[in-house]
């Protein structure tokens, strides 16, 4: 049984300008100790997917329309507030993109670090402080004993993200959700942080969900990847399959448009048009208006994820019917 089993998760936002279908029927599984990448452009629903699971969507305007998210036997979407609170921050932890704004500027690092332990009753204050110090040391903050008494503004961006990681991992969670953890950081610091998450993951056996728009980051980091577009998973599979055997036209187009994979000076492939307006429902595939292979079928029939071998699933009708070859 998978550690986390998300089924048909659907989150809509009811706004004045209509219903925004941010996440529209997303299903995936996460095994123990596994690393799953969720990639997609802004607005594709990758963050909302994870926030929905942890009850972090402001309701209203958001509403979880349907679906389940079973974590170790508990449905996170339908359990009581108390049950959710006992899981969130203890067994499922999250780190956010912007380390500048996600720490409380009024509290010392120490107080923020021990909070998860105290709230979940995992330790008394004295031993919590000890654990906090050890954790801060483990995430590579030098001179942790004196730094722990400092305030967030005394730390640089990379250091704050380390503190965030220490805070998330101090309860030894089963799942760590990292939402664009390195987007706000410089590349050399990004390399440090990714290395750190990997090291801690191996030590604690934590499963990681890494949300990012950077295909480069997931390629070396994740075991499996979900590619999201327009609130849906359009392709999912082992990392190598996604990169070396891309099937869905969106995934292929995305890889053709990144400069890193193209010869220098070569005209980059561009995806025509713009990301879909999520407040307007589309009858068929949401990528169809921008897809160069789209047929009448694509605009009328909604595609479903289907297995095409090697644990690789894709939601393209033309690929599924084998009349589209890469």
């Amino acid at each position, binding site marked *: 049984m998978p550690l986390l089993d998300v089924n048909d998760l659907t989150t809509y936002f009811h706004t004045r300008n209509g219903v925004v279908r941010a996440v529209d029927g997303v299903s995936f599984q996460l095994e123990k100790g596994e690393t799953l990448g969720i990639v997609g452009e802004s607005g594709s629903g990758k963050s909302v997917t994870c926030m929905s699971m942890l009850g972090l969507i402001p309701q209203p305007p958001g509403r979880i329309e349907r679906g389940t998210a079973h974590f170790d036997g508990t449905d996170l979407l339908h359990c009581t507030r108390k049950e959710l609170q006992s899981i969130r921050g203890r067994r499922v932890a999250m780190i956010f993109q912007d380390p500048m704004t996600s720490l409380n500027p009024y509290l010392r690092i120490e107080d923020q670090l021990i909070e998860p332990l105290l709230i979940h009753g995992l330790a008394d204050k004295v031993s919590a402080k000890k654990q906090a110090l050890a954790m801060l040391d483990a995430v590579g903050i030098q001179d942790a004993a004196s730094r722990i008494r400092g305030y967030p503004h005394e730390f640089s961006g990379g250091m704050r993200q380390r503190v965030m990681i220490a805070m998330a991992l101090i309860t030894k969670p089963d799942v760590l959700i990292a939402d664009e953890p390195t987007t706000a950081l410089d590349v050399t610091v990004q390399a440090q942080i990714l290395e750190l998450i990997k090291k801690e993951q191996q030590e604690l056996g934590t499963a990681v969900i890494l949300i990012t728009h950077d295909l480069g980051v997931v390629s*070396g980091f994740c075991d499996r990847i979900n590619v999201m577009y327009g609130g849906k998973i359009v392709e999912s599979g082992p990392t190598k399959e996604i990169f070396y055997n891309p099937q869905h036209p969106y995934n292929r187009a995305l890889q053709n448009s990144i400069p890193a994979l193209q010869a220098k000076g070569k005209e980059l492939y561009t995806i025509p048009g713009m990301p879909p307006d999520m407040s307007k429902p589309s009858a068929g595939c949401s990528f169809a208006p921008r897809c160069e292979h789209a047929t009448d079928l694509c605009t009328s029939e909604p595609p479903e994820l289907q297995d095409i071998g090697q644990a690789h699933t894709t939601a393209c009708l033309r690929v599924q019917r084998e009349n589209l070859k890469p």
Partner: protein
Amino acid sequence: MSDPYLQINNLKTHFPVEKGILFRKVTGTVKAVDGVSLSLAKGEVLGLVGESGCGKSTLGRTVLQLIKPTEGTVTLGSRTLTDLDGKELRSARADFQMIFQDPYASLNPRMTVYSMLAEAIQVHRKVPKADLAGAVGALMEKVGLAARFMRKYPHEFSGGQRQRIAIARALAVEPKLIIADEPVSALDVSIQAQILNLLSDLTREMELTMIFISHDLSVVKHISDRIAVMYLGRIVEIGPATEVFEHPQHPYTKALCSAVPMPDPDSERTRKRILLPGDPPSPLNPPSGCTFHPRCPHAEERCQAAWPSFESLKNDAHQAACVRLAELNQ
């Protein structure tokens, strides 16, 4: 190299750090740009890379005289920009323009595309009012926007389209030099490609000289002829784009290149990564000698003594500032 078109000579931009409210005292200086010399041929694209805070944006702004330099000269064509003032500078600005990072912040939300571009056109060219709409339309088509959108406001456009408007506005005065400061950083990958293609087409068509500032090495490699790598206000390595990217010589460039994640699972899992310790130091209190020495895996005692001069190994066009250059690149 043929005659340089843009010549930057020992450019320094220092900002005083002041304390106190009534009796302000200068308590230190931030050496944002500290002795940069560069020359660009006409039509050349130079990529400027570095981490945040290394002074690459300040360098760009200083070249355009948006910030007065503390020391040094900038020469564009036959004019020394650093000597110009007021009116002269204003009229010279038609030759050099800037494209900013955030297309959401750099466009006036109360102006239509037409009024924005018409204003820019009229600043430097006398265009009769009757022909203005035509000129704006032509400009919009040039950057891949339909002319019928000219009466719309910025909020009606997506990020990529806004960046096209910003590019059109920069091109309105028919400049010779463009400084693009992180023009694609705020855009999604699929939109990035569109803007990169547009910029490289335009530079070719209009023979633009461009300094392309970015923290993203793979983007810079794609668009530039040469790459300059900056660290703490100075250039540490410069050379032909592919050469710098594929065979970096300076220890910092090596670490930077190895830190860039590649979207290729096999190479990503096998290649060795040089992890630099710590963060870039503050330009307020830069380390002595080679400013990179506290983070450098190959630092020796002599690295702390003086800033190293540029040296080249095989190719004269490829230079790096490291005292151990020869022994580290055997």
